[in-house]
């Protein structure tokens, strides 16, 4: 099961997993690709669990500590595996019911980002919940893992929110940059959005070659048989996109992601992260 162009749905035990499954099933149905659910169990080797601060080491201290720590890990890993299996099977049934033909499930030990990079081979599309297990406790709009994963992976990533609607109207946030230009070509060549009306939105500061760029994108998409509406709206990108999404009842957004360095996004914030936070619809991120 390695080199086929599969859709990888990364899930944890949160309610968002259901919507990840729904969108993944939708994508594989359209793309006619196999689906794989990946549940990553992070053993957190970087976190200690010691309640023993006696500081005394006796006969065979090292051996005993090794035995104790591995028993703890074993118990944790076993319960994570058993629970994971149950919810993975439920998701598999859900996806099959939603029309996915080939569904596989897999559990791996490891850290989220590293594991995804390892598993990225043969992945055509990654589906990921924008928030995860800790969403209700941390109250953050954007799961802490999303940006890291998007940065680490060179694959299109569909980040989903907490509801499923079969996408009807798609919008591409187009900036004329190389990433979104490639994105337009990708959309034109992929069966994922075939038959759906597409809105091309170019926002932000007026640039000289903007109309030309927009025209190119429109022609490319139309040549692929899409019904395209092109819009050139000046203004702050975030606001313009948010307004357009609302006004035109867009239910899937496509955009380039994290074009700047991590340092810059740490200091000045990231446009992508802001957009992800403010938009409530599933977003396909391109790198």
């Amino acid at each position, binding site marked *: 099961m390695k080199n086929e162009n599969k859709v990888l749905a990364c899930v944890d035990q949160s309610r968002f997993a259901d919507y990840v499954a729904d969108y993944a099933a939708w994508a594989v149905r359209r793309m006619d690709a196999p689906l794989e659910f990946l549940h990553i169990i992070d053993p957190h*080797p*970087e976190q200690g669990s*010691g*309640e023993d601060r006696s*500081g005394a*080491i006796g*006969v*065979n201290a090292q051996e005993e500590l090794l035995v104790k720590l591995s028993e703890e890990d074993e118990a944790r890993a076993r319960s994570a595996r058993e629970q994971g299996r149950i919810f993975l099977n439920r998701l598999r049934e859900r996806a099959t019911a939603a029309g996915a033909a080939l569904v596989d499930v897999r559990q791996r030990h490891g850290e989220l980002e590293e594991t995804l990079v390892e598993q990225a081979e043969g992945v055509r599309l990654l589906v990921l919940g924008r928030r995860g297990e800790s969403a209700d406790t941390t109250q953050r709009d954007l799961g802490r893992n999303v940006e890291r994963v998007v940065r680490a992976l060179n694959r299109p990533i569909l980040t989903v929110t907490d509801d499923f609607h079969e996408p009807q109207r798609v919008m591409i946030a187009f900036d004329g940059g190389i990433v979104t230009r490639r994105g337009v070509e990708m959309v034109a060549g992929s069966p994922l959005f075939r038959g759906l009306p597409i809105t091309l939105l170019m926002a932000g500061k007026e640039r000289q070659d903007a109309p030309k760029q927009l025209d190119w994108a429109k022609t490319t998409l139309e040549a692929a048989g899409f019904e395209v509406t092109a819009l050139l709206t000046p203004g702050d990108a975030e606001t313009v996109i948010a307004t357009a999404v609302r006004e035109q009842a867009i239910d899937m957004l496509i955009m380039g992601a994290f074009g700047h360095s991590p*340092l810059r996004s740490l200091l000045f914030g990231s446009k992508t992260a802001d957009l992800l936070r403010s938009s409530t619809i599933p977003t396909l991120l391109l790198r």
Partner: protein
Amino acid sequence: MIKSLRQDWLPNVRHDLLAGIVVALALIPEAIAFSIIAGVDPKVGLYASFCIATVIAFAGGRPGMISAATGAMALLMVMLVKEHGLQYLLAATVLTGVLQIIAGWLKLGALMRFVSRSVITGFVNALAILIFMAQLPELTNVTWHVYAMTAAGLGIIYLFPYVTKAVPSPLVAIVVLTILAIVLGIDVRTVGDMGQLPDSLPIFLLPDVPLNLETLAIIFPVSATLAVVGLLESMMTASIVDDLTDSNSNKNRECVGQGVANIASGFLGGMAGCAMIGQSVINVKSGGRGRLSTLAAGVFLLLMIVFIGDWVSRIPMAALVAVMIMVSIGTFNWASIRDLRKNPKSSSIVMLATVAVTVSTHDLAQGVLVGVLLSGFFFAHKVGQILRVTSRAEDEGRTRTYTVTGQVFFASAERFVNAFDYKEVIEKVRIDVSRAHFWDITAVSALDKVVIKFRREAAEVEVIGLNEASTTMVDKFAVHDKDGADDILMGH
């Protein structure tokens, strides 16, 4: 980069800080005890432990491993300090760091794979014995009070955890014994009697030695040994921590980090140190995993020393001895005694030889060298047994074909030569070596010898498959890193 910074420092803050305190409390008696072993003021060991722990937190390659002034290193400095004084020790410490950085750049950490399990066990046991032996001067020619206090200290250390595990029991032992000694007015030696304690933060100082070749000739041999022993113990400790925490470390970064830490220590008036097995086990046991635990240990150590230094000087030596006996008991690999009979004799001999040489020379480097050499001999001997020569007569006894299978190299060359029957009267000898491995020049010359011996008996000799057999002379053909090496080495 930001991600790895966060990963290294922040995932375990609470446990790391608490574990750091536990470790710092245990580091104080050790640093004092190791200074005494080296023959310097306790402040030298305390400054060293602070510097090394703090620097290694940033520069090391194994988060969660504790490095500070150690017994293994202290034992190597004794003569230098005695003959040339503290300043030369500081210079040697800086040079040790430089050598370790070079070792890290040359990626010498990889050499650790030649150090077998038995040698590591021997190293650990020898270290434990040396730490214990270093306590004996405190226990000879003293009043019964000292024995009583040491016994009481050990009792508290091992029994107090049954009451609560929230407080480090070595600390309880030290506090109780100190109070007892002061209240009852028992006249025993205290830490203050052993030399100067730190009264300020460490300050940057260049070692006061003449910068000439003579100085280098004095410090270089010591520094080289210190560098080797420091890296050995650090690499061993790193793999122990790797195993305990089920995670990986960057061994070469650790080598460089140890070097940087020692240079810093030398310039701030501290002695050379390295990773500590006992303390690292305590750290992991207390929940410490990240770099923060190491940093916390160093910083707490210094804060405690500077602010409660007066009290530290009144700790009876008996209390420290009790703590150090605990460390040596915890470091010793007791299972290795049980396994002496079970393990192959050769492994047991390697382990015991490592211990014996180290304990008699007080030099872990020599012990490890002997252990590694012995392992090599035993291994060569064992592999040399894998050689079989069979023969069959052909052509109504006029021809004989010898088939050689197995490993031919320096350790088995003689067996190889003796496996042929030169006295047989014969016209033609065929030697098929295509299923043997010729590992070195000795093997090739052994074959030459066999051929010449047969020629002298007027037999015509034909060697079959020499090319296949000698592809394993890896130095010459370097097949080991080419594609298909597996086929060549394993195929026949």
